[in-house]
């Protein structure tokens, strides 16, 4: 019974903090979970600037898709920072974010990352390229692409890398079938995948470079390899229609591309998108970097990729999952 009261109290506190936020110079930031530390630092730096003096923030972090659905269902948000452009497009479709949200000089992209291989200390299984993942006996950990939006980057990196190596569409899809046979566990999120890998399961973890750097910072005994061909992960932010009416929110949005803010992203393992901030950082740019919109590799943006690969019933990955137990 007491547990119920404590839970109710928690709900009341959450509701209270959400309700008390939308007054005066306050900004509601709704973001996906991994850049929490980076945003914390950027916000305190912003509050020290003239533009941000006296601005208060209410911050909400969670899984990207959940956050998008919460905002669509009415959660207050002035600024949304999500892991995939389609999550922001979902809000644009509901009129909560202007349709032209990507129309700034950085296309609405605030930070980059790449898909990397995290391996055990010393790389005992000599994993360097995509071909090594499907060698006999190798166990690959990657989240379930249906529960984790982020896991979709991994799948598309694998597909695109095969295409870049000269394979046809059919061969690249066949590679995905082969790859998933090497996946013994499909955790529900990127962070869960990392903790399962840290527990000792698997030989290689597919994840984002910033997660790999996070693991190193937390002292997990791993190292990471950036394959020669990999996918550039681009994470977007957008002002909502309510945010566009708030000078403080607009100022903060602009501040995200300042050198200070971009350096804060870099310190947390995200690749800055502003050249001045990239100075002095050591992000390796592989020769075969491609994006989700590299048309010559058969990648035509998230809308088409989601439809073809991740449709819950008809998608290629749904068929792959089905073939596993078939």
């Amino acid at each position, binding site marked *: 019974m007491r547990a119920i009261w404590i839970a109710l109290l928690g709900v009341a506190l959450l509701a209270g903090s959400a309700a008390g936020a939308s007054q005066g110079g306050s900004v509601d930031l709704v973001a996906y979970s991994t850049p929490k530390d980076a945003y914390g630092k950027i916000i305190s730096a912003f509050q020290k600037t003239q533009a941000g003096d006296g601005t208060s923030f209410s911050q909400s972090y969670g899984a990207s898709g959940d956050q998008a659905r919460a905002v669509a269902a009415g959660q207050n948000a002035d600024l949304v920072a999500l892991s995939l452009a389609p999550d922001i497009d979902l809000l644009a479709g509901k009129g909560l974010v202007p349709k032209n949200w990507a129309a700034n000089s950085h296309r609405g992209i605030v930070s980059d990352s790449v898909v990397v291989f995290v391996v055990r200390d010393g790389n005992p299984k000599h994993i360097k390229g995509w071909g090594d993942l499907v060698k006999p006996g190798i166990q690959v950990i990657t989240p379930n692409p249906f529960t984790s939006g982020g896991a979709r980057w991994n799948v598309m990196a694998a597909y695109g890398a095969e295409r870049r190596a000269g394979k046809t569409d059919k061969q690249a899809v066949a590679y995905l079938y082969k790859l998933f046979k090497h996946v013994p566990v499909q955790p529900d999120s990127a962070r869960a995948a990392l903790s399962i890998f840290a527990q000792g399961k698997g030989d290689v973890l597919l994840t984002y470079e910033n997660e790999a750097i996070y693991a190193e910072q937390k002292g997990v005994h791993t190292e990471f390899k950036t394959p020669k061909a990999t996918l550039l992960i681009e994470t977007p932010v957008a002002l909502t229609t309510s945010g566009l009416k708030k000078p403080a929110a607009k100022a903060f949005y602009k501040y995200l591309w300042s050198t200070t803010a971009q350096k804060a992203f870099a310190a947390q393992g995200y690749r800055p998108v502003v050249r001045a901030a990239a100075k002095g950082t050591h992000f390796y740019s592989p020769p075969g970097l491609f994006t989700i919109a590299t048309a010559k590799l058969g990648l035509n943006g998230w809308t088409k990729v989601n439809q073809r690969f991740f449709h*819950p019933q008809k998608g290629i990955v749904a068929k792959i999952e089905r073939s596993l137990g078939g």
Partner: protein
Amino acid sequence: MAADAAVVGAPSRSRAARPGGLALGLATGYLSVVVLLPLAALVWASRGQGPAEFWQQATAPEAVAALKLTLGLAAACAFVNAVAGTAIAWVLVRDRFRGKGLVDAVIDLPFALPTIVAGLTLLALYGPGGPFGLDVAFTRIGTLFALLFVTLPFVVRAVQPVLLELDVEMEQAAASLGAGSFEVFRRIVFPNLLPAILSGVALAFARAVGEFGAVVLISGNIPFKTEVSSVYIFGQLQSGNTSGAAAVSVVLLVISLGVLLGIGGVRRWRTRYDRV
């Protein structure tokens, strides 16, 4: 005075036996708002683009595989709890030992622990890097362990009060008539406990069917192998397939309701003489 009380007491007791209109209204009103309304909304959301689509969503091969696994695990979990939970309740009521109060308090801890923490802890314990070298994580056995952990209190707490109330003289009488201890248990104790065990089993089963947090980490989520319904439903939601998620949820609820009604029916039949 005593006679007066008895005279006055009799009709008032019979009146109290039937809830008044206000109490009944409050109870059903509360039940509607808190439980029935959300369930109705779920059914509404599951209609999708009509019954054909509902059927297609609910009978997708992954959904059916997940459903079978979930019900199988929940049944196994309910059975183990019926035996182990009764034994624990027995020890707590009938035996005297040091630290009994502490053990009694520990029983409820699985309820207090956020289930995702339970999942994380069990993973550390039963995973590849675990201290016992017992690697059952990402298997059905590991998933069952997680379910047993979160459902432990149900049978124990259902059986304990009944066992406390149970008249020891009945057992002594049976023993004096020559019944062995097993026969006393089988013919006196067990029939008295059975309704309570069944209540606990029903709760444990229902909880196991719906559990998410404790199993999402340890189950491994491989479709057809270790993916349970709650995780499958979560995946459909995350992929934007709301009506599919709702359809599978409705099937899960209907089957659970059937099982709960069945257990309730057995329980009512067992206690039919208590309600004359």
